[in-house]
C-alpha cells in the first residue's frame, strides 16, 4: 500500500491492521444485527434470546406459538408480554392440542414454563406433549427441497438464463429451525427433554384446601392464588428485570387451562347473573399487567361456549390481546356440508393486537379450516371441491 510505504508509524499501524485482517481470515468488518443463536456478541445491541425474533413490522419481540401456520396468521408470532386466548371448541378436543403445542415449543427452545390447571396435574400435561421433529430431519428436508428446486430451475431456465447467476432465494429460510418447530402429535415428547427443562406447575386442588370456609371477596380465591404464584415466579427468577440476571435472559411461557370453568371456582358458566361476574375480568386485567412488565407470554383456554352471559365473553375478548376461536364440526349441521367434509372444524382469528402500532395486522383470509391428521394439525383455507365442469360459459364448447 502506498500509505504504508510513507512513514514508519503509519506502516506499523497499517501493518497491525493487515495482521488483524489475516487473523480474522476474511475481513475486519463485524456484522451487526440480531442473531438467533442467543450469544451475546459485543457489537449487537439487541437482546437476543433463544426462540424469539423481532417482528418485521414494528420490531416487537415475538415468540412462536408452536404451530408455524398459526404464527403466520398472527403476523409472525405471539408478542412477548401479551395474552393469547383460545376459545375452546364444544367438546374440548382441539384446544388442548394448541395448548400443548405452545408448551412443547417452550421446552424445545429452552424457555421456562409455568403450567396452571384445575383439571389435570401439570406433570401429566407435560408428559403428553407432542414430540418435536428433530432438527437434523428438518434440515435434511430443507436441503432436499433446495436440491429439488435447483434441479427444477436448471431445467426451467433456458430462456431467462441470466437469472441463474443471481443468488438463490431459499424456499424455506434455514433459520426456521430456530423459530417455529414442527411436531409429531402421535408421539410423546422424550422424557429427557422434559427433565432438562425448567417448569413450574400450579394444580388448584393442591393449592386450595376445599374444607376451608372462605368468605366471598371480589376476586375468586383460586385466581388470587394463581396471580400470587405467577408474581412470585416472575420476581424470583428475574423475568421482570428486578434481580439482575447474570446468566442469559429467558422467556417465561405461562399456560392456563380451562379458565372460567367451575373447577376454578368461577360461576360464570353456571348462571347469567352471578355474584362473581367480575372475577375473571379482573384476573385477566391483573395478569396482563404482570405480563406487560416482564418477559413472558401467556396462553389461556376459556370455555366460552359455556359462559352464559354474552357481555362477559365480550369483555374477556377485549381484555386479551390475541383471540383465536375454535369451532369443531362434531354434532353440528356443518358436519354434512360437502364443503367441509375434509376438515374437522373452523378456526376464527377474532382479534390481533395493535402493539405500538396504529394499524391492524389483519390477515386477508377470513375463513380458515383446520384438520387434525394423525401426526399434524394443519390450518388451511377450505377448498371448494365443487365440480368446475358445471360452470356455464357462453362461448365455451362444454355443454351443461
Amino acid at each position: 500500500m502506498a500509505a504504508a510505504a510513507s512513514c514508519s508509524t503509519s506502516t506499523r499501524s497499517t501493518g497491525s491492521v493487515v495482521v488483524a485482517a489475516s487473523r480474522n481470515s476474511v475481513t475486519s468488518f463485524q456484522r451487526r444485527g440480531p442473531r438467533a443463536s442467543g450469544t451475546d456478541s459485543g457489537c449487537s445491541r439487541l437482546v437476543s434470546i433463544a426462540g424469539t425474533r423481532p417482528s418485521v413490522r414494528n420490531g416487537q419481540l415475538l415468540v412462536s406459538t408452536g404451530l408455524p401456520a398459526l404464527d403466520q396468521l398472527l403476523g409472525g408470532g405471539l408478542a412477548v408480554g401479551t395474552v393469547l386466548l383460545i376459545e375452546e371448541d364444544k367438546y374440548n378436543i382441539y384446544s388442548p392440542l394448541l395448548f400443548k403445542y405452545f408448551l412443547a415449543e417452550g421446552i424445545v427452545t429452552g424457555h421456562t414454563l409455568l403450567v396452571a390447571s384445575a383439571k389435570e396435574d401439570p406433570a401429566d400435561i407435560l408428559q403428553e406433549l407432542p414430540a418435536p421433529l428433530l432438527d437434523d430431519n428438518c434440515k435434511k428436508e430443507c436441503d432436499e427441497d433446495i436440491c429439488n428446486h435447483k434441479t427444477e430451475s436448471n431445467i426451467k431456465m433456458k430462456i431467462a438464463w441470466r437469472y441463474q447467476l443471481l443468488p438463490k432465494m431459499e424456499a424455506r429460510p434455514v433459520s426456521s429451525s430456530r423459530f417455529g418447530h414442527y411436531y409429531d402429535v402421535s408421539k410423546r415428547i422424550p422424557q429427557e427433554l422434559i427433565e432438562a427443562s425448567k417448569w413450574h406447575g400450579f394444580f388448584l386442588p393442591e393449592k386450595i384446601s376445599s374444607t376451608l370456609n372462605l368468605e366471598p371477596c371480589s376476586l375468586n380465591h383460586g385466581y388470587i392464588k394463581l396471580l400470587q404464584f405467577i408474581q412470585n415466579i416472575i420476581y424470583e427468577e428475574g423475568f421482570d428485570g428486578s434481580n439482575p440476571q447474570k446468566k442469559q435472559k429467558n422467556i417465561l411461557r405461562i399456560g392456563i387451562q380451562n379458565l372460567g370453568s367451575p373447577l376454578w371456582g368461577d360461576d360464570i358458566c353456571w348462571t347469567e347473573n352471578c355474584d362473581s361476574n367480575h372475577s375473571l375480568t379482573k384476573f385477566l386485567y391483573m395478569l396482563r399487567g404482570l405480563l406487560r412488565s416482564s418477559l413472558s407470554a401467556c396462553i389461556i383456554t376459556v370455555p366460552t361456549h359455556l359462559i352464559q352471559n354474552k357481555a362477559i365473553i365480550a369483555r374477556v375478548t377485549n381484555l386479551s390481546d390475541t383471540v383465536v376461536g375454535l369451532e369443531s364440526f362434531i354434532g353440528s349441521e356443518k358436519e354434512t356440508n360437502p364443503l367441509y367434509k375434509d376438515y374437522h372444524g373452523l378456526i376464527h382469528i377474532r382479534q390481533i393486537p395493535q402493539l405500538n402500532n396504529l394499524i391492524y395486522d389483519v390477515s386477508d383470509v377470513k375463513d380458515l379450516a383446520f384438520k387434525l391428521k394423525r401426526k399434524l394439525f394443519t390450518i388451511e383455507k377450505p377448498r371448494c371441491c365443487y365440480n368446475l365442469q358445471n360452470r356455464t360459459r357462453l362461448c365455451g364448447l362444454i355443454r351443461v
Partner: protein
Amino acid sequence: MLESLLALGGLVLLRDSVEWEGRSLLKALIKKSALCGEQVHILGCEVSEEEFREGFDSNINSRLVYHDLFRDPLNWSETGETLPGGPLEALRALCRRTDPGPVTIALDSLSWLLLHLPCTTLCQTLHTLSHQDSCHGDSSPGEQVHVLGLLHEELHGPGPLGVLSSLAQTEVTLSGAMGQASAHILYRRPQQRLTHQTQWFSILPDFSLELQGGPPLEPQPYPDPRVPSMDPTTHLTFNLRLSKKEREAKDSLTLPFQFSSEKQQALLCPGLGQATSHIFYEPDAYDDLDQEDPDDDLDV
C-alpha cells in the same frame, strides 16, 4: 357399548326426562357392577331406601352400601343414623375412602345435589371423586372409580347442563320411540376423537339390561333432525343452469375460428364504407433498410 359403559371409568352422566326415566337404567348398571364384584356406594336423595332396594335380590342388596339422605336431609331428628354435614360431607367422605379395589358410586340424583349445593363446590367434588385413581400412584385400570350420576335434564337450564357435560367422560341421553327406549351415548376418550352411538334397549323386571336391535315397528325413515344435510348448490355466485333464452343465444353464436361462407364473402369483397388501409412507413435513424435488393449482386 351400553354394557361396557362402566368399563370406561370417570363420570357417567345419565340424562333422563319425564317421558323416559333413567332410574331403572341406573339400577340395571348398579346390578351389573355388583355382580362383577365391585363395591357399590349409593347416595340416595330422591327416593327412600326401601323403594330403591325394591327389585334387587338379596345377594345384590347385601353388596350395596346405601347412604340415605332422603329421610332426614337436614339432620333434624339428630339421631346417629343420618350423615352429619349433609350431602357435601357425604360426598367428601366418599372421596376420602381408602379401601382398595374398584368401586362404583351412584348418585341418585345429581339434580337434587345441584339444587342443594353450591355449583362450584359440587363440580370440584365431582371432579375429585371421579379422578381418585390418579391419587393412588400404583392403581391399575381395573381399580377405577366409576361415578354414575342421574340428571333430570328438564330441571336445569343450559348452563348447568353444559358444565356437567364438559365434566363427564360419558354422557347417556335417554329417549325413545314407540315405547322402546334408546340411549344416545357420547364417549370422550382422552386425547382421542369423540365417539357416539345410539343403542335401543329395554330393562327387564329383575333389572337386567337387554339390548335390542331397533324399535319393534319400522318407523318412517326420517333424517336425524340433529344433523340436516346442506345443499351446496344454494347461494352460489355463478349459474348452474341455463334458461331457454340463454340456451338459444348460446347455440346461435358463431365461433371465432370457424370459416363460414359469410366470413369468406366479407373478406373477399370489402363492403361499402370500409376503407382500405394503407401503411405509411417512415424509417427512423436506427433502421438500415436499403431500397436495393441485396440479392442483386449474386451471380445465379
